[in-house]
């Protein structure tokens, strides 16, 4: 047996190649529709995006509650009817509200497009925010909230956002149970009428694009009246808290959740692609330094990651893990040790080429298939960027050298500026 010489096959360089461009069309009322044709199956993903995220909130929970109530009753259908119809046509729907944007995504088979568009219009532009459903949702959410606060991961992350962005800014504000009492259906109607508007939205369509898809969308949404209404955005400033190290006690916890990080540049900044590479080296993939050292060599944790995220007005980087309580201080020490190493010692060529190749493969995966394409499109479109960002990233992955990584680590990972939150 095993007469074969088990010699490693040659590795070929991985190229990102040409990224398919979205085609843009405008409805009669100027709503932009981006079309990304891809895939082998007769299925379409349609995402309706509004600038209606938490950043627009003048009270906590307004954005998420408005969003969650969209499918809870409209002018023509009750909550039950809406949900039943979406299910009957086999669609999958996702409501989402994030820091900057909020919206609604629906996946459906081509044959049901007309019905799905009609239902989408109901949900997005004719919600009625009925009191009964609102009360049920609120009671459910209070219970979810209590459960959310049971988990050390959430205690740590909520406190992290508050520390990094400030307790008064929508990016940083922690929800307290009393916030659920202040929201009313009338406030939701007001928020909806200001931010779920045709002049404030885009549609991203991907997958199978049937010939007259754009006509269907136009006949469904093209008659909505855009109007310029004056809304004063709330004036709140991003300002991190003074205390950098915070410990939250949670009696009975068998693990501590650790979050270490701070605000940072976002996708619009020229250093961002380089910072992405640095993040990968540190903790952005399974072979990263943090994972190798703290999981694979020491066994302190099931997983440890560092990540980089962009918001419209800012961005943040965070290292996250849960570790057994007796190992949590050792884990933290190792995290700082790894950061210092990156600031002082050049990354070896072999290691850097693993990261580069892994990231090049990641970029291929980011554009594989209709839904990945749509998500990647949205991830730059939101920032007013386009595929040029991805080409810059691909270029940086190829060209970055160990010196640049040291420089980035020194500039962006100043240990004195990092917040350290431990819950558990």
């Amino acid at each position, binding site marked *: *047996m*095993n*007469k*074969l010489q*088990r010699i*490693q*096959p040659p*590795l070929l360089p*991985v190229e990102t190649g040409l990224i398919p461009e979205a085609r843009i069309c405008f409805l009669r009322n100027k709503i932009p529709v981006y079309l990304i044709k891809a*895939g*082998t*199956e*007769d*299925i379409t993903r349609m995402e309706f995006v509004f600038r209606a995220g938490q950043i627009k909130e003048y009270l906590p929970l307004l954005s998420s509650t408005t969003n969650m109530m969209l*499918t809870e009753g409209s002018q023509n259908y009750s*909550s039950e009817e809406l949900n*039943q119809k*979406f*299910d*009957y*046509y*086999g*669609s*999958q729907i996702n409501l989402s509200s994030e820091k900057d944007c909020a919206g609604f995504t629906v*996946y*459906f*088979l081509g044959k049901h497009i007309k019905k799905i568009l009609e239902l989408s219009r109901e949900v997005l532009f004719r919600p009625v925010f009925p009191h009964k459903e609102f009360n*049920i949702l609120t*009671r*459910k959410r209070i*219970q979810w909230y209590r*459960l959310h606060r*049971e*988990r050390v991961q959430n205690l740590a992350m909520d406190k992290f956002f508050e520390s990094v962005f400030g307790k008064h800014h929508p990016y940083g504000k922690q929800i307290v149970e009393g916030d659920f009492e202040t929201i009313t259906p009338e406030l939701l109607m007001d928020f909806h009428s200001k931010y779920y508007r045709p002049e404030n939205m885009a549609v991203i369509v991907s997958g199978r694009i049937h010939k007259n898809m754009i006509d269907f969308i136009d006949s469904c949404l093209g008659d909505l009246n855009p109007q310029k209404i004056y809304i004063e955005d709330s004036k709140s400033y991003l300002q991190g808290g003074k205390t950098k190290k915070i410990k939250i006690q949670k009696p009975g*916890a*068998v*693990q501590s959740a650790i979050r270490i990080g701070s605000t940072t540049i976002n996708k619009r900044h020229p250093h961002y692609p380089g910072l992405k590479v640095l993040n990968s080296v540190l903790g952005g*993939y*399974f*072979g990263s330094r943090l994972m190798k050292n703290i999981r*694979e*060599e020491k*066994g*302190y*944790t*099931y997983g440890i990651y560092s990540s980089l995220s962009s918001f419209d007005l800012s961005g943040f980087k965070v290292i996250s893990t*849960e*570790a*057994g309580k007796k190992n949590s201080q050792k884990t933290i020490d190792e995290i700082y040790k790894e950061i210092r190493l990156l600031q002082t010692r050049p990354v070896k060529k072999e290691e850097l080429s*693993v*990261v580069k190749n*892994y990231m090049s*493969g*990641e970029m*291929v*995966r980011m554009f*594989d*298939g*209709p*839904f990945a394409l749509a998500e990647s499109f949205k991830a730059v479109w939101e920032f007013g960027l386009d595929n040029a960002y991805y080409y810059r990233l691909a270029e940086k992955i190829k060209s970055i050298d160990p010196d640049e990584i040291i420089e980035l680590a020194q500039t962006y990972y100043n240990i004195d500026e990092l917040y350290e939150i431990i819950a558990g």
Partner: protein
Amino acid sequence: MIKFTRFSLDNGLRIIVHEDRSTPLVAMNILYIAGSRDEDPDHTGLAHLFEHLMFGGSVNIPEYDIPLQLAGGENNAFTNNDITGYYLTVPSENIETGFWLESDRMLELNFSQENLDIQKNVVIEEFKQRYLNQPYGDAMLKLRPLAYKVHPYRWPTIGMDISHIEKTDLSQVKDFFFTHYAPNNAIITLTGRITPALAYDLSVKWFGPIDKRAVNKRELPVEPAQTEERILSLEKDVSSNALYKAWHVGPRTGENFHTVDLITDILAGGESGRLYTKLVREKNLFNEINAYTTADIDPGLVVITGKLMKGIDPLFADKAINEVINNLKNRAVGVYELNKVKNKFESSMVLSNTSVLNKAMSLSYYELLGDADIINNEIDFYKAVTTEMILETAQKYLIPSNCSTLFYNSTRND
């Protein structure tokens, strides 16, 4: 229609190839027919711990991850009651690296005490993170042994207890490998930018030289029919009461699997499911409620899990679930509702087939069930389900004497 080619090697390894040139990637899935049901009751959690060890290097390759990352690839794995699945995606130009890596670890692992000790720690942290340090995280650890008395499904994949993981030694690990990890106990699927001819050549080259092994014959105890209702009440420091119910049903390949699956969709598929509509929306007894079938290869379960609203008596909530169940047993489901769950299945199948990786995992699994082509005709089994079949199947299985109920009560009075 998912077209595929199927062949097997002399050593018994089965290989399926589905070429899809719309992607620059190839997905490779290796299904080993070994899961937690193959464990000794005194050493549970071994199949899953073993999955971790598969990343600690093999006989000719010191480390699994680095060469794959150099090839631009990504991988992961999972273990369940019945199988262990390993999967990777890699840009097509580097697919041979996948063959090299996977065949080497099928050939033999680099068994080291050091790696075992570290991965035991990692798995123990996983046990804590996912099952112990989560509210309700241990519910299935309690429900399984209530429903199953003798069959290995009575313990979860992570293991019955942390002590089982702690005491695992190297000889058990080696033994598990040579009796379960074998070409004649695996199914490989390749999907994406690869021709069947290339897949064949590479399979012969890399997996062909691995010898057939004597795989443990599975002789599992048959779970005796449950004859009376089982109830367990626990008091835990959680924010609210929860309720878990399980009924025994048939195996994944049994004649009424599809009917059972649609029953759980009628009960809880999407926001318009009956349990959600009645008990969350109308009566406001539950905060969330779900129903599913475990779809296990040996006879499985239908499970309902629900979290109660504050102040609701668990016995009252249980009664309300039973009313919904009784309604399903007493009155035929309407055509609209039945079509709704069938439509939903159809689109979820299409949605799953948009990903090369999902296609690879499904094809391997269907081949294990008997024929990879089930991926193309399973929808027909769902379409053939009638209202009478729903009625009969609900009457057959969803009865109190076949049911186990776990009351997971909060000790707090706030």
